[in-house]
């Protein structure tokens, strides 16, 4: 499969009064053409910062991309000038945000806000852009689009505004859509509709999607692959099956155990991961998850775990995969769902730095 986006060793930090916050600390992943990559992780793990770095929307100062490459169609976005980025934003990469109530300009007609993209990137005339805006509103499932183009955001419901945001993001057929928790602010039924719409449009348009969420539940039917982030790093990455049926990192176990599942009818209380993420001003020396990890070994506090490769597509950064590590059992809730995956290597392979 062809890679659309490849992020290599991305580091982003913010200069604050309390010191330098290392929000993203060496993240590498890629997105193939037409696929959906989900990025999951607790609040503050650096998901939004990662996605904003791709769009080069990190507020500078205080933020700064300190290191790494963001290869989009083979071109490094980190090196682009602001003017060059303006051409890419909205045209090649579209973005949807968490809160549809505040993401639209309240004093501009919704149609106009869609048309802006078309006029800017497709060089359309005003009239053609308006026609297209109506079409787009229809495409995202808004009824009576001829009337709706002339309305203001406050005349739209939350779900409709998020649909309008999707119309804006997809207006010029971007190759990549970044959706940063697009449904968190919506209620459950609307949430399902928006997810359905995104999947549907992806099928029609062939867009790749980076789907950011802290809800593993929606990942299962949205994503092809999943990256799990913790404290500014990706701790595990794999296909949906690999993450759900053969997770290897204790943090992923924790996330899965705290996920309400539909198939288990026994109402056991959900095991939330105890403790809180580390202070990213002074990231800990070893594994950032170690203090909250019931499986932590001495080495976890001293040395950062390297990446291990479990299959062609499955990576995890935990010392538990080291040949010398003791064999441990994942928590009960996770153990129930484990399956043997045929694609796995015989033994996890240590990934060398250069990769």
């Amino acid at each position, binding site marked *: 499969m062809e890679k659309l986006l490849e992020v290599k060793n991305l580091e982003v930090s913010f200069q604050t009064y309390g010191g330098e916050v290392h929000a993203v600390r060496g993240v590498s992943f890629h997105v193939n053409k037409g696929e959906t990559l989900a990025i999951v992780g607790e609040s503050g793990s650096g998901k939004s910062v990662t996605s904003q770095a791709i769009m080069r929307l990190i507020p500078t100062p205080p933020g700064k991309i300190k290191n790494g490459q963001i290869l989009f169609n083979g071109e490094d976005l980190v090196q682009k000038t602001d003017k060059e980025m303006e051409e890419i*934003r909205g045209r090649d990469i579209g973005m949807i*945000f968490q809160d549809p109530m*505040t*993401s639209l300009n309240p*004093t501009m007609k919704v149609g106009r806000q869609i048309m802006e993209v078309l006029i*800017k990137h497709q060089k359309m005339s005003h009239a053609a852009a308006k026609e297209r805006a109506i079409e787009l509103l229809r495409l995202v499932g808004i009824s009576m689009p001829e009337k709706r183009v002339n309305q203001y955001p406050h005349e739209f419901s939350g779900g409709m505004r998020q649909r309008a945001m999707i119309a804006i993001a997809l207006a010029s057929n971007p190759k990549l859509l970044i959706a940063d928790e697009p449904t968190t602010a919506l209620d459950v039924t609307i949430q399902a509709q928006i997810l359905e719409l995104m999947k549907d449009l992806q099928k029609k348009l062939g867009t790749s999607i980076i789907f950011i969420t802290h809800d593993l539940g929606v990942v299962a039917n949205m994503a092809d692959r999943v990256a799990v982030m913790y404290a500014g790093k990706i701790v595990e990455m794999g296909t949906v099956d690999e993450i759900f049926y053969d997770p290897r990192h204790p943090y992923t176990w924790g996330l899965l155990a705290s996920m309400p599942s539909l198939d288990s009818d026994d109402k056991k209380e959900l095991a939330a991961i105890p403790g809180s993420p580390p202070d990213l001003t002074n990231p800990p020396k070893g594994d950032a998850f170690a203090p909250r990890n019931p499986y932590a070994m001495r080495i976890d506090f001293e040395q950062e775990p390297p990446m291990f490769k479990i299959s062609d597509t499955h990576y995890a950064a935990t010392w538990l995969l080291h040949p010398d590590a003791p064999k441990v059992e994942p928590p009960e809730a996770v153990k129930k769902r484990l399956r043997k995956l045929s694609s796995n290597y015989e033994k996890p392979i240590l990934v060398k730095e250069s990769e």
Partner: protein
Amino acid sequence: MLKYIGRRLLYMLLSLFLIITATFFLMRAAPGGPFSGEKQLPPEIEKNLNEFYGLDRPWYEQYFDYLISIAQWDFGPSFKYKGQTVNDLINNGFPVSFFLGMEALFIAVGLGILLGIIAALNHNKWQDYGAMVFAVMGISVPSFIMASFLQYVLAIKLGLFPVARWESFMHSVLPALALATTPMAFIARLTRSSMLEVLSNDYIRTAKAKGLSKFQITVRHTIRNALLPVVSYLGPLSAQILTGSFVIEKIFGIPGLGSHFVLSISNRDYTTIMGVTVFYGIILLSAMLLVDIAYGLIDPRIKLAGGKKGE
């Protein structure tokens, strides 16, 4: 929309009525009368004067007479300026004050907004600090000091403008500048903080994510929304500026309305106080109505009640 304006006009009449009533009685409650002064008038003359101006009649008769004459746009004779009616005072003074005020308003609004925008777009850079130091000075320096300063530097030292008097447009520049300084500084600060607030909004991030340039974002998404607070400040400001400033008019020797207002109070010139107050009230209320209409046009979330959907 028409229905809305009609209703607002009705409210304006009601407010005016309250203003008239309140001033009428407050004035009567204050000690002293129009003819009490350093020189004691002989009692007969004072009695005659009171009779002539109807001040000897019971208060309710005076009150209703006054209401009726105001309804006919007749503010009565001035007690102090012999042979002049209050209408004369207003008709002579207001155009002057209005012209000067408009000039000052243009300066204050234009420069103030411009400064505020420059400061906000260069947040925490030297342009920002420069504009804000300037603004703080503008707010804290009283207008009479500013006026003398302008007279000294621009008129006396550089000879660019006449020092005082009211004869040509050139004569109006310095007083307009002096009058504009404080509101301009205030508008600059208001615009700046409002711009910064708008720039931190999510929809600005959306605009960036669309690939719009900084200029497009500023013009289309920021300024319009940032000006809302400025527009609401414009109501009281324009009423105040347009009706003249006593201090500025005194310093520059301008025959405007502002001096009549202040003088009439110290003179206890009842009819002039009343007339000018009512007139001020009318200007203020109309300015506020205009502001509300403008607000409704800028911000679609505000429906002018009774109006049709979308204008």
